[in-house]
């Protein structure tokens, strides 16, 4: 059962808002609240786009991203990194690990939706 977007986010209210705006945009959504669950769900659910928070329990967002890029099966998965730490440092690490889009919190809903749409479109074009 492939889904459009997998959300990995531990803050319940943020997760709720993401879930709401992405569903409203018309995509199928699944959500996890820690890093291990995120890796598991990526393999299991094969989402077309991953929205990944950096500050995740158990396994940080960066670690998850690294694993995804290391695995041949998931290497091409478009990933949107969400972080509350707006520092240059995080943005650089995210790019190094191969994040496709980097969005800082608090975000504008339209930006997140636009980015996901862009990633889904690219995914549609390549696959």
């Amino acid at each position: 059962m492939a889904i459009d977007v997998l959300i990995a986010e531990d803050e319940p209210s943020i997760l709720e808002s993401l879930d709401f705006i992405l569903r409203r945009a018309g995509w199928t959504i699944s959500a996890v609240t820690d890093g291990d669950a995120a890796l598991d769900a990526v393999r299991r659910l094969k989402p077309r786009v991953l929205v990944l928070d950096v500050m995740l329990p158990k396994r940080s967002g960066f670690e998850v991203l690294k694993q995804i890029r290391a695995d041949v099966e998931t290497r091409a998965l478009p990933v949107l990194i969400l972080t509350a730490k707006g520092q240059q440092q995080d943005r650089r690490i995210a790019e190094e690990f191969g994040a496709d889009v980097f969005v800082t919190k608090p975000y504008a809903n339209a930006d997140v939706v636009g980015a996901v749409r862009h990633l889904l479109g690219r995914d549609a074009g390549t696959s």
Partner: protein
Amino acid sequence: MLSADFVIATAVGYVGLLFVLAYFGDRRARTHKKSFLHSPAVYTLSISVYCTSWTFYGAVGNAARSGLEFLTIYLGPTLVFVGWWFLLRRLVRISHLQRITSVADLLSSRFGKSNRLAVLVTCIAVVGIAPYIALQLKAVTSSIQAVAGSSEFGQGSLAGIDDVGLAFGIAAGMALFTILFGTRHVDAKEQHHGVVAAIAFEAVVKLAALVAVGIFVVYVGGGFENIFSQAAEIGITMDAENTFDARWLTTLGLSVAAIVCLPRQFQVTVVENSDENHLRVASWAFPAYMLLMSLFILPIAVFGLTRMPAGSNPDMFALTLPMAFGQDALALFAFIGGFSSATSMIILESIALSIMVSNHIIMPLVLRYSSGGSGDGQGMSRMLLIARRFSIVLILSLGFFYFFFTRDSDALAPIGLISFTAIAQFFPAVIAALFWRDASLKAATAAIAAGFVFWVWCSFLPSFESVSPRIALLMSQGPWGISWLRPEAMFGLEGLDPLAHAAFWSLSINVLTLTVVSLLTTQSALERIQASVFVDVFKRGQVARGNFVRGSATANDLFFVAERVLGERRAAALFEAEARESGVDPDMLEPSPGFIGRLERELAGSIGAASAHVMLSKVVSGSEVSLEEMMQMADETQQVIEYSQQLEKTSAELRSTAQQLEDANVQLRELDSQKDEFLSQVSHEVRTPMTSIRSFSEILLDDQDIDPGQRQHFVSTIHQESLRLTKLLDEILDLSALERGERAWDNVPIDAEAALDRALTVCEALLRQRGMKVQLGERAQRTMVEGDADRLCQVFINLISNAVKYNDSDTPLLHISSTVRAGSYVVDIADNGPGIGKRERKLIFEKFWRGPGGVADQGGAGLGLAISRQIIARMNGSLDLVQGPLPGACFRVRLTVLR
């Protein structure tokens, strides 16, 4: 009728007799320590070597020419021996203690054992004495010629030999004689008992001869009065007008200096002295001897002037008068007397000078340039003897050359006074050496050198006036026509007697230089030591006098060593303690073996045992030369110690400064990174609720068609997140204020149990909501502690709610106990949650740290524990994580109970 041949033969025979005397005198002195050779009489007679042929012949001539002036030459020494014998005693004491061998050695030793000064003094002495030696040669030559007269028979084998040849022969003979006499062996103390015995014998002979001639003259002349009245009849009077003029005073002063500083006088009076007490006898006996010597001088002079044909040499009256009366035996006796006075002077003077030349000039050169092959004592001693012999030849040669160049002048006395003036240049330095502690080496050297230069210019040079036209020109016009530099009218001082002029300038400059330079320069350590050794000789003399351990260490010596190694304070303390213990004044301290041992141990602490021992044994055994080295060693050691201590201190300071800087730097960097970390955390913590607020606000704004239930939910989420944000900001401000010590409260006595009860009540709802059971353990009774009730309650609430929030157990359990143990009120709050891993134990009190799962939905910002710890710390208590009764975490609050 006497002939030159007979007289010379007699003289040679007389010398042979002297030689035998000296030989047996030496043997006797060595085998019989108490022989008469060690008596004060012999000592006094040997001192009368002062009376040379200048006295024997010259004084008569001087009296004939200038009346009573000749007396001054005797008055000076009389003053010294009668009035100043304490000066001589001091000189003798010091010289014995320091093993002084000559006047050069004395000055060198006093002024820091400077060999340069010794060389200067020796050179000046050799040059200055040359006229004096020449005088003796001239006197003997004249006396032989007087005997020979002009007759064929009288001249005998001397026919065809002029005075120069005769003088050369005499000089050569004297040199040979002196070498045979004085340099047969080298004695450590430079005492020559045989020579002294011969000199004493000669003193008797010359006195007897002069007295014999005197008695004869008085007899022939019909008594003293008759002689003077006869002379007055033909217009000869003893001119008393010039008495007590400048020249008179000068001669008196010069003779005072001469009796102390003349090398031969120093030799007999000081070096050859075997017992200080002999000075007491000499102090009256020597003046008495001189009185006898001078008693008949005037009658002989006046009688000679009356009876002898005009133009005859008045210097030779003592010889020519008996001859004129046909008393050949008496004339021969007079000749032997004059010969005695000349030989005794030449022998002793050249021995004294040769000791100076060989000890201070030749030996240092030999030692410096020898390959070291002849290092054994035997070779050294032979070397020394050869050096002495060479010096004697040199000294007599100089005397001969002076005679050769100035043979045309006929009076004897002025020549002697030239030497006196030269030798007098040592006198200020000698007096300063004995009495003035601050006199320095530089000053003494400069003073003697300056005085000598003036002597050469004003006294020595003019004596060649009659020989060299150039010098005569120089005398009349000055060098390069500079009139104020004329040797006998320096700086425009004209009309003064040449002798007085020379003595005035040379000695004035000498004394002035000595005084000024001494005041301007500082002494070296060794100079200071030697100065105190010399000046305080009678203060410190007790040691040597009491048990006469030669060279045993004085407290002073030991102190100088100790001061250099231990520093002044420690050394002074050590010596004062010793003085207190032995109950004497510190200045009078006599070091006991025990004290020396203690001192050695003290020194060993600073420079090591071996060095300390070497150093002290050198002082104690009194090896003078090595004292200098030892002082240097001590100085260097001290310098090295001070330097290394300084280095150590400096490097320690540097190290500590560097460490402080590094610490400060680490602290600053730590603070800086903490600040960055804190801001980053705050940013993150603020952004999280802000994200929800913004996102839901946008949803609500964008989409008007959301159903009311959902809208209500979103609005309430926004509200909650706003509250969370507010609480977060409050906590951040609270913690920051606590950390900075602001928002302080006054610790007052409060009931801690009440605060705990209140916290449990507040948390009751939360506990019930999570279904968490509370297990109350032991509870303390009402316990008073210092603090703030609300803040303490806040801490308990934080700890309880943490236990609730992080507990993931199916049957959550909270265990609370409070006890009073050893003056402390202790509250344990434990749970059966996941506990805190080892890695996190250090982190839990850090800001923004949230449980191991980083669980977000607990709503805290991770500041609770940090704040709680700050609060408890301000109540002078502690908040720690401990091993609790349940598997989970256990926090312990500990506060001091008020009594």
